């Protein structure tokens, strides 16, 4: 089957469809795909979705940038805020947020600090994370790395920067994490969700151009593969038309 859309476009529509009208959410830094997903949801079915919580509200869509946290993307928006208001949003919570990481483990925990070694004597130091308060003060979050291989999908992260489901329901509850937390892991290859009993990752659907075996071969642990694991519904013609016409005319998602 030939693909007439890119893996990042597929990721964008998967997440856009999961955002509901009237919700409030934000995207973090390096947020090309999340900001595209939010913009698509606003155009398609969620005109009352508010982008907010990161010092700006409702930027006018028109061009995608790697960061989306700069005035090229935000010059026309509805309002700006400061880091004091980030404090409020972190406590009052959003409906959704997006994360990525150096490592993601089978419980949806995310590591952005170090791989190997220890925090202060790391083999490989990552960037850390600014917005980790949003991990569970936003009702749910999406994990959306733009690569999917055995190096970033690992059995257990070396450092929990963003807690997902910890090591299962008991530890999640013990840590005081009462919200849904990670809902979907959306990668260039597949969509994964969490088994409600074990809170472990399982395969939900596989994108066009990938087989279940491809996904498993590129995942550093063996996720459950339920019988109903199917194909990810590809972008519709309408979705692609809006995405390419109004949100990403320069084709950043196809680069």
């Amino acid at each position, binding site marked *: 089957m030939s693909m007439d859309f890119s893996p990042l476009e597929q990721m964008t529509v998967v997440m856009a469809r999961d955002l509901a009208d009237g919700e409030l959410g934000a995207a973090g*830094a*390096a947020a090309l795909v999340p900001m595209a997903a939010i913009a698509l949801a606003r155009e398609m079915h969620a005109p009352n979705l508010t982008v907010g919580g990161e*010092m*700006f509200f409702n930027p006018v869509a028109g061009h995608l940038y*790697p*960061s989306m*946290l*700069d*005035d*090229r993307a*935000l*010059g*026309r*928006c509805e309002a*700006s*805020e*400061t*880091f*004091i208001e*980030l*404090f409020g949003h*972190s*406590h009052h919570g959003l409906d959704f947020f997006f994360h990525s990481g150096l490592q993601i483990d089978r419980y949806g925990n995310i590591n952005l*600090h170090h791989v190997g*070694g220890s*925090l*202060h*004597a*790391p*083999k*490989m*130091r*990552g*960037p*850390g*994370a*600014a*917005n*980790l*308060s949003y*991990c*569970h*003060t936003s009702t749910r979050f999406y994990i959306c790395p733009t690569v999917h291989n055995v190096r970033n999908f690992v059995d257990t992260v070396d*450092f*929990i*920067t*963003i*807690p997902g489901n*910890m090591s299962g329901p008991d530890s*999640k509850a013990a*840590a*005081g*994490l009462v919200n849904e937390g990670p809902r979907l892991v959306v990668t260039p290859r597949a969509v994964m969700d969490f088994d409600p009993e074990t809170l472990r990752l399982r395969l939900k659907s596989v994108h066009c151009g990938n087989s279940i075996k491809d996904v498993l071969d590129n995942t550093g642990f063996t996720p459950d593969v339920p019988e109903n694991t199917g194909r990810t519904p590809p972008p519709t013609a309408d979705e692609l038309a809006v995405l390419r016409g109004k949100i990403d005319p320069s084709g950043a998602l196809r680069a």
Partner: protein
Amino acid sequence: MTRSTKTIGLKEAAARAAAALKERPEICLGGLFKQSRPVALVRALLATGADGLHVYSSPGAGYDVDLMIAAGAINEVFVPGVTLENRLCPNFRTAVETQQIKAHALDALTVVGGLMASAHGVPFQPIAALKGSDVLKHNPLITPFDCPLTGQPLYAVPPIRPRVTLLHAQEADRWGNIRHLSTMVYADQLMARASDMVIVSVDRLVDDDVVLDDPRSVTIPAHYVDAVVEVPYGAHPTASFPNYAMDEEHIDAYADLGDAARRGDGAGLAAYLEQHVTSAPDQTQYLHNIGEARLSELQAEALAL
């Protein structure tokens, strides 16, 4: 008697900052990631040979902190996220991995809360929204305690009071009233209120009447500002909207040099530091090195938005 202005030159600003940081090495940088960072002030400070610094920032920083590390000025990093966004910070990584510097595991609420406590003049800020992360096990700035009203477990962060904060904005008057014209003001106001000494670079000084005609446009009142330095393109290679866009090519080329140094070839990075920092070029020389054509492009890109 006449009122004193707060305008000084870049070298004097650097000297003042360096002297203050010898007393207490806590420096804080304004802006966010690649926007409105006080890079000319940072270069001038590095040219004084400043070292042993503890660096704070709004919760996201990249190029400037990496540059300070490459120049050997930093001992400890208190910035939650250090990244160039499209790639990692090479010299930050090298310095942490080789244990030349300590990069603390922090989160935005600790940094913002600590600045809030300092700005508000209270001995701590309570934080509730920190759960489950290994950052909590390592964060050196938080202390668990129980809420005196509800009994719920909370964290207390003490005031973060930088000895020197360096900011960049678009405009100021000679008295030190600062005007950000960009969409976001980041944590700049909070830092100004939280710090002992505040030095601000601006792309241009404006007449007193510009301020008096629109007092609400002043983002940081002069009361919080110790000195203002007029530095055209003072944020380069980061952005100063609406005056000029970020110079991503410059930052990428710098990062390439850092990555080469990680692989053992440090000559390019050393030459970069010599050209832009150690030789202490003034801003005119620096801009000449960047090139008028490039600066015009960045200005045009910002104007087009």
